[in-house]
Structures are given as structure tokens and as C-alpha cells.
């Protein structure tokens, strides 16, 4: 019987891989339905019905249809609270608040510069789009300042929100994977002692290794 949970999108998409990592951490079965973006499948009416902004991923769980990877992850953690990694979104309101705080920091402060760098350094060359050196420099500086804050935090705390791996750390995996493994700017992370240690820990989780494997074979 097909799993009721469906994720629509390519594994190479950072937002799609965020959702896949969460599903695997929570031990939730799912079907991955590929979307060929180079053929514009994400802009076709059938897809737009699920995701009106024409972006991946789209997500379905029986009759519930969602989009925005961070919202999907929060939903998965709420609905499947008792499955897989029960600590992923905290088991009490204070833990959850701290996780939400760092998930917001990822979405507001980390994602814009790291996402821009992933696009410029990893995707633009593949798409034969000329790189913008000015944007690269600007975003590298911005990201550096954010990672300075992380460096201090991760000297005080094993993971961003506290002593346990959480959705906040998970949300950083997709962009960082590209920058460390797919570009020459990995030292932004690895040259910072605490950030480097944290990256090493979170990227060696079984769930993330599985996602990376899916990206390689997808």
C-alpha cells in the first residue's frame, strides 16, 4: 500500500531535502514524487494547485495539502510526535520555544546569505548563469557575521537550541551540505572551531546520510 505521505520535488532542492530529513528523523514513511524543474513541471497548473507560488516542495498527508518546508517540518513533528526522534521539536513548551527561536534565526538570518551563495556557487554554473562576484562577496560577509554568532552559541551549547539535536539544527543541513561538500567556501564553517564541530555532528546523523544518498542517486 502506498504511504499516505507524499513529497513532491527533486531531492537536489534544499527545501525538499529539509522535509526528507525531517521525515526520516521521525521515522515516517513517505513517497517521493519527482518534479522536473528544468521542464517547468513546478509551474504547471496541477502543481500550482498544490503550491500557488510554483516552488518545491509540495506535500500531502492524506487530505492535508501543505507547502513551505519549515511549516511542513513543524506539522510532521506535531502529527507524528510519538514517532522516531521524539525530541526533534521538544517535549515541553520551553524546549519548543528555543527550537522555534533558532528555526526563525535559520530562516531569517542564515538562509538568505547561505541560500544566495548556494545559488551562485552550486546552481548557477550548472544552469549556465553567470556568477555575480559582488553578490558572492556581499553574502559571504553576511554569512560570516551570522556564523560568528553561531560560533559563540555553539561554544556554550552542544546544539543550537540546547543539548539535543533539533529541527533548528536540521534546518541548516541542506544549504550547509552544498557549501561544504559542493563549493570551495566550506571553510566558512570548518575554520570556526565550534561551528565545524557542530557541522560534523549533525551531518553524520543517519537521517542526513540517507538524504545525501538520495541526492546522489536521484
Amino acid at each position, binding site marked *: 500500500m502506498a504511504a499516505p505521505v507524499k513529497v513532491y520535488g527533486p531531492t537536489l532542492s534544499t527545501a525538499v531535502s529539509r522535509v526528507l530529513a525531517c521525515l526520516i528523523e521521525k521515522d515516517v514513511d513517505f513517497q517521493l514524487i519527482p518534479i522536473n524543474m528544468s521542464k517547468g513541471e513546478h509551474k504547471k497548473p496541477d502543481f500550482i494547485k498544490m503550491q*500557488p*507560488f510554483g516552488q518545491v516542495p509540495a506535500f500531502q498527508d492524506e*487530505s*492535508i495539502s*501543505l*507547502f*513551505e518546508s*519549515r*511549516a511542513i517540518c*513543524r*506539522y510532521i513533528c*506535531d*502529527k507524528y510526535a510519538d514517532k522516531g526522534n521524539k525530541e526533534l521539536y521538544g517535549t515541553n*513548551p*520551553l524546549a*519548543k*520555544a*528555543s527550537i*522555534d*527561536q533558532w*528555526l*526563525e*534565526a535559520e*530562516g*531569517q*538570518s542564515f538562509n*538568505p546569505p547561505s541560500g544566495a551563495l548556494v545559488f551562485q556557487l552550486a546552481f548557477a554554473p550548472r544552469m549556465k548563469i553567470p556568477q555575480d562576484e559582488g553578490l558572492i562577496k556581499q553574502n559571504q560577509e553576511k554569512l560570516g557575521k*551570522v556564523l560568528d*554568532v553561531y560560533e*559563540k*552559541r555553539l561554544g556554550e551549547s552542544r546544539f543550537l537550541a540546547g543539548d539535543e539535536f533539533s529541527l533548528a539544527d536540521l534546518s541548516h543541513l541542506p544549504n550547509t551540505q552544498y557549501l561544504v561538500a559542493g563549493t570551495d567556501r566550506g571553510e566558512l564553517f570548518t575554520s570556526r572551531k565550534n561551528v565545524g564541530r557542530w557541522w560534523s555532528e549533525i551531518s553524520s546523523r543517519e537521517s542526513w546520510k540517507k538524504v545525501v544518498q538520495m541526492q546522489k542517486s536521484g
Partner: protein
Amino acid sequence: MQRNTIMALKLHGPAMSTSTSLVITCLHEKEVDFELVPVDLFAGEHKQPHFLAKNPFGQVPVLEDGDLTLFESRAISTYVAEKFKETGYDLTRQQNLQEAALVKVWMEVESQQFCPAIAPIVYQFYVDPLKGVSPDQAMIDVNLEKLGKVLDIYEARLSSTKYLAGDFYSLADLHHIPYTHYLMKTPAASVINERPHVKAWWEDISSRPASKKTAEGMTFGEK
């Protein structure tokens, strides 16, 4: 109606700031008493060590609730809405899995689609003049185009539901208020006014008592 006065919450930030106003609106909707501790952004207070100890990113607002210190306005509003679920308006619909999920979706839409387009416009109209710089029209135009495309999707959505997550007001709508409040006082207001369902939605959510009460403090740019 019972007001929740047991916990003395402290909110650090200027009443006129968009992110601080977001939390203030939520606190009013939940009928929660709090102390507003002003932070002088013009004097750089948010970059001083005593503030960085509360938020290492040096941004307002910060919430203190007993031993808990929390930053990021959207995380704070979610925390307040869920902690004080017994009072005021139900902003997160946690009793209904589907409704709660849609609130989360449209909160992320505000965060990832709406805010990046509207924030630079408001910045150009309000912050640059303070430095004696004229608004950069090219920057405004580029972002107005982006915002227009986002609002076209909102227009379609709001033609089928009264509010963003469904036929109920939620935190997803509330998160749009602060930036839109400031936008509506500029020529860029047309981007809202030209779209009838978006305009009606704006008029509805901005006329809620909690929204109006917060707006009294949103005096940025006024002489």
C-alpha cells in the same frame, strides 16, 4: 473576560518597530499584560553588551518570561499564542490539526515571500529619509514588482477564504500587520488597494481592537 496577569512578561523593544509591534499585537489579542521596556535603536542600544547578552544577533524584540529569554518576533508570538491559549483569541488553532497546519503554512509564506519583498520598500520610504537620503526609486520599483506577484497569489487565495489560513483570523494574518501598516502611509499603498480581496482583508485585520491599540504606538516617521 479574564486578563492573564500572573506572569509579568517583559518585552524589550521600541513600540514603533515592526518586529516589536508584531509581538505587541499578539499580546493584546491574547489579553496578556506585559511591561514594554524601550530600546533606543538610534543610540545603538541593541548592539551594546547588555542587549547582546539577551539576543546575540542584536535585534529587537526580546521577551523575558521568568527564566526564559526569547528572540525572533515570530517565535515569540507563537510562544505567547500557545502559552496563553486559555485567554483571548485562538490564534494558532492547535485543536484542529488541519487548521493548525495551514496557519503554519501561511506564517512561513509571510516570512519567506511577503516580508523580503515589503521590508526593503518600507525601509526606503522610512529609514533613508532619516539619513537625509532620498528613497531609491529603482529599489522600490523592483520590490513592488515582487510584492505585486506575491499579492496576486494572496488575491486568489482571499477570494476563496476570508483569511489566509481559512475562514478564521490567525497568527498568519497578524504577522502581516506591522509592515503593511507602514506601507499604507506611502504611495506604495496602491499595491494593496488595487487588489479588492487583499484590500478588504487588510481593512478587516487592521481594524481589530488589538491591531488598533498597537497602531497607536507605531509612530515611526511621524513628526
